[in-house]
């Protein structure tokens, strides 16, 4: 048997696997990507869109760490839109509809062009280790590949089962075979697995839809982009297409309610055991759980410039095809619509994420990393950001370096990993802005300030990106200083009043003026006769000024929490010996084994008085050992 040797092996070529191999490539590691179908790398099996609140923040963080996702979507979007305008810059987000086949091609090309990456079409059936140190993998076709680190990014393929009405098929995605042996191998390594479920919607023929009667959701007319490295001039802003909205009605309700017995969710058969995410309810779920709500919105999203398929966002279902036709054709504009591919539910194995440490490595193992849906998350952006972090840490492990851990105050990806490790999850975990307690610090406009310097140091940032980062940073700083020192004089306030009909009087600094909701930076620069700054810079500057007070408040909280972070908890603490701690806290702390008091404080069921008791215990042990 032939033996191939790599630094790192990545299992799976979805969004996590793709970012993982590309990061390994940037860090000059010899990496093998093993995937059953190399033409499907970076494919979007669910909705053909990237971004949205918290998710676009993740993409910006991926970009700030030198990752691929932002650049890929910038190159291939067919519709881009800004969300949450007027709700504050910290929660403003962008979302893009991708050209599905083009995005897929774009990722395949990036991987194929990577010097250090070897793509192998195969299925991994076993992870090899000795004394909890990773040695390599074995594949279905009999290959043995050795590597010191393995990153597992299997998505929904681990023992995947598809449900369509009464029909149950083994499969990872529609039309693709699942991976079976690997679940057993992970169990043999001692890992606890659980079953999760997600679903997708029927796709329709574009030609069979009557768009004329539907509400139009046009793209935003701004040069929006995810990556600082993308060139606006080369982007397809002019060619964009629209999305459309239709609404459920009484007929839809009747079809669903009368056919509930056909749904594997409600037929009482117990065919589906996996936990369905609450934020992605099936259409039958929506009608059952919210019976009073008369209308549910349905979004029609085109899947590409030259693609006939339209994604029916909001109608995720596992009903049989005949019922899916009933639902679809009850919707205005879709009276004659044809289904290309039915929606389905997919159940898959994943690893209980509280077995991970903050590097995304499996605790007590050397060289085993997990990223993406296998960790119980959901979403392309969540998966990609984990793939990137897991790869960085796998490489650092090979180099004998400390893991790279993003703090909750440094990035959504930090919040994501911290939540998984400290709390685990019982449903597919999706990123929400509400999960981030330092939301005002984690803005789109400062992802580079938060992460790029560290990424540069690790070797992930090209010279060009680094120059761009420095340019944004320095320009923003000097403009802010200028705005602080310059005060509105009589002449300027006159011009402002005349041009923009705002009520101002001389005196305040320009920075102070920007705190007003009716005045923005481009107005000021226009009055001053200065050229407009690019959108990206304008936003950076405005939010640094407008949020300064809040940023200070949140920074104070961060400082306090950082002190608790310094109080580390050994892995061998016997919590039931801690005097005065509630039994619930003992149970939770013994289970999650937080690394420090800060993490302990975030575990539900651990009260402030439990923490005090814990600190008394820590203190007592210090004095005992001295």
């Amino acid at each position, binding site marked *: 048997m032939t033996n191939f040797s790599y630094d790192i092996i990545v299992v799976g070529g979805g969004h996590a696997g793709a970012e993982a191999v590309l990061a390994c490539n940037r860090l000059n590691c010899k990496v093998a990507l093993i995937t059953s179908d190399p033409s499907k790398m970076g494919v979007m099996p669910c*909705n053909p869109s990237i971004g949205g609140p918290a998710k676009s923040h993740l993409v910006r963080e991926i970009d700030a760490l030198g990752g691929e996702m932002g650049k890929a979507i910038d190159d291939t979007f067919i519709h881009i839109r800004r969300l949450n305008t007027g709700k*504050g810059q910290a929660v403003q987000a962008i979302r893009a509809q991708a050209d599905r086949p083009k995005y897929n091609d774009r990722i395949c090309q990036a991987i194929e062009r990577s010097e250090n990456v070897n793509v192998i079409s195969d299925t991994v059936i076993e992870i090899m280790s000795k004394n909890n140190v990773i040695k390599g993998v074995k594949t279905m076709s009999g290959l043995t590949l050795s590597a010191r680190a393995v990153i597992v990014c299997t998505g929904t393929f681990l023992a995947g089962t598809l449900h369509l009405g009464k029909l149950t098929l083994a499969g990872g995605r529609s039309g693709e075979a699942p991976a079976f042996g690997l679940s057993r191998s992970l169990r043999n390594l001692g890992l606890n697995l659980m079953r999760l479920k997600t679903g997708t919607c029927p796709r329709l023929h574009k030609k069979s839809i009557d768009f004329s009667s539907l509400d139009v959701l046009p793209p935003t007319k701004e040069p929006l982009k995810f990556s600082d490295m993308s060139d606006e001039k080369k982007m397809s802003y002019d060619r964009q297409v629209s999305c459309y909205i239709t609404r459920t009605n009484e007929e839809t309700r009747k079809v669903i309610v009368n056919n509930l017995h056909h749904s594997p969710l409600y037929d009482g058969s117990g065919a589906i055991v996996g936990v369905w995410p609450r934020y992605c309810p099936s259409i039958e779920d929506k009608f059952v759980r919210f019976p009073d709500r008369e209308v549910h919105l349905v979004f029609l999203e085109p899947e590409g410039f030259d693609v006939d398929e339209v994604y029916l966002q909001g109608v995720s279902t596992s009903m049989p095809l005949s019922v899916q036709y009933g639902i679809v054709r009850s919707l205005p504009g879709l009276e004659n619509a044809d289904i290309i591919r039915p929606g389905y539910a997919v159940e898959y194995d994943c690893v209980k994420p509280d077995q991970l440490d903050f590097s995304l490595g499996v605790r007590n193992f050397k060289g085993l990393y997990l990223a993406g849906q296998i960790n119980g998350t959901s979403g392309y952006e969540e998966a990609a950001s984990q793939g990137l972090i897991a790869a960085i840490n796998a490489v650092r492990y090979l180099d004998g370096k400390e893991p790279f851990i993003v703090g909750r105050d440094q990035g959504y990806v930090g919040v994501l990993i911290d939540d998984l490790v400290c709390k685990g999850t019982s449903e597919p975990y999706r990123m929400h802005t509400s999960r981030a307690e330092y939301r005002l610090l984690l803005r789109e406009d400062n992802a580079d300030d938060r992460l790029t310097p560290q990424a540069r140091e690790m070797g992930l940032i090209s010279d060009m990106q680094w120059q761009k980062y420095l340019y944004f940073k320095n320009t923003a700083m000097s403009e802010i200083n200028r705005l602080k020192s310059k005060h509105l004089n009589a002449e300027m306030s006159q011009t402002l009043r005349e041009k923009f009909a705002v009520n101002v009087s001389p005196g305040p600094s320009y920075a102070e003026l920007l705190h007003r909701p009716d005045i923005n930076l481009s107005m000021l620069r226009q009055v001053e006769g200065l050229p407009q700054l690019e959108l990206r810079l304008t936003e950076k500057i405005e939010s640094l000024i407008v949020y300064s007070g809040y940023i200070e408040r949140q920074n104070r909280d961060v400082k306090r929490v950082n002190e608790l972070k310094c109080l580390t908890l050994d892995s061998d603490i016997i919590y039931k010996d801690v005097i005065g701690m509630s039994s619930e806290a003992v149970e939770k702390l013994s289970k999650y084994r937080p690394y420090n008091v800060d993490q302990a404080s975030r575990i539900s069921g651990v009260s402030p008085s439990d923490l005090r008791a814990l600190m008394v215990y820590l203190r007592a042990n210090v004095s005992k050992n001295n």
Partner: protein
Amino acid sequence: MRSSFLADDTIVGVATPSGSGGVAIVRMSGPSALEIADKFIRKRSAIWQPRYMYLCKVVNSQEQLIDKVLAVSMPSPTSYTGENVVEIHCHGGWLLPRLIVDLCVSHGARLAEPGEFTYRAFMSGKMSLTQAESVLDIIEAKSKDALLLATDGLTGRLSEAIRTLKDDILDLIAQYEAEIDYGDEIMTSDISSLVIKSETFLETVERLIDGAYKGRDVIDGIDTVLIGPPNAGKSTLWNALIGQNKALVTPYPGTTRDILEDYVNVNGVYLHLTDTAGLHDTSDPIEKLGIERAKEVLKNARIVLLVLDGSQKMSEEFMTIFSDIANNVRTDNVLVILNKSDISKTISEEDVRRILKIDCEICQVSLLNKSDIENVKENIVKICQTDMKPDIKPISVNQRQLQALNEIKESLISLQNGAKSNLTCDCLLLELHECLMSINCLTGDNVSDDIIDRVFSKFCLGK
């Protein structure tokens, strides 16, 4: 979590049992203890020699004398807590230690939580392992304290009101969080409704705070202060109310030099009665001190009993002093007792109102006459009842809970200001979360995932 688990701030508390004792000790511990003490302690020496007792003056923000005290500093690490400690040995009783604690707080100290001095002592290694258990008893007492909220009859009201408030705040948070995370699926709500809502929340909390003060009235008595020019009959009234000759009564003005205090049940109303030195300008330094203190006491007074000698013309001197202190008095709570009507009625009720420029209840009496005393008592009860805000129900809270209530109020004010100034959703949420945190501080709850749970139970979200 409001209070830090690590000693980065300075805490203050009264170390001696409250109420009784001639001397009380106010203890301050933390990095800024000396710095804070220097803000209101005036002593001859510019330095604090460790463990050296200084005779010094405690002054308020207007540099007015509050008390003469003994103060001692114990710098880190050789102190009880291992931190910088300042102890102020002041006059005892109910009011003075509290005033000094208030001064410390106003200069940056934080009210110590139960057991916190001991906790800090332990954390800085000033205690052995075996002592740890007793510390934990105290720490546990704190959570029991929060538990009591739910069980005690009086505080049950607080607990219920706070639960409702917390529920409303959580609903608002869920609403805004959903609007942000699912912006294209649900309608954006009108921020102006938040202005009205926060107003309602504020009213609720203010009523709770009123109730808390009322609850304290039940336990601590209503602060009632006797003032008036010397020899007008304050001590006679005192003795008539208390029922024993505690105050020294002589025909000579200025006999009552120090502040006397006691608790008395007047026709079913519980009063915390304080007698002050006669108000007149004097060069006697000790008496001067008494007058300054009387002014401080008046600031906190809920009922003022102004005793005047109706048989004599009011002295210019008294009128000057009275107009000086009048700012500190709520005139609707003043009862003027125009004494010595048996000698002569030289001053009429109209004279009092005109000269002192106050509109208040006046009773013309002779305090030597028993039935006249009853008349005064009835008038006191009448004022108490109008002041009591009959629609406010008393609740029983301790100092920590009252402080937490005030913090909730502050956070609600901040929320309301934010809503009024059209803050964006992301910042308003920060304010709302602060409100939630201050509420959790009172209830002892931990913030958990329940916001996301609420979002999904309230709204049908997700495509």
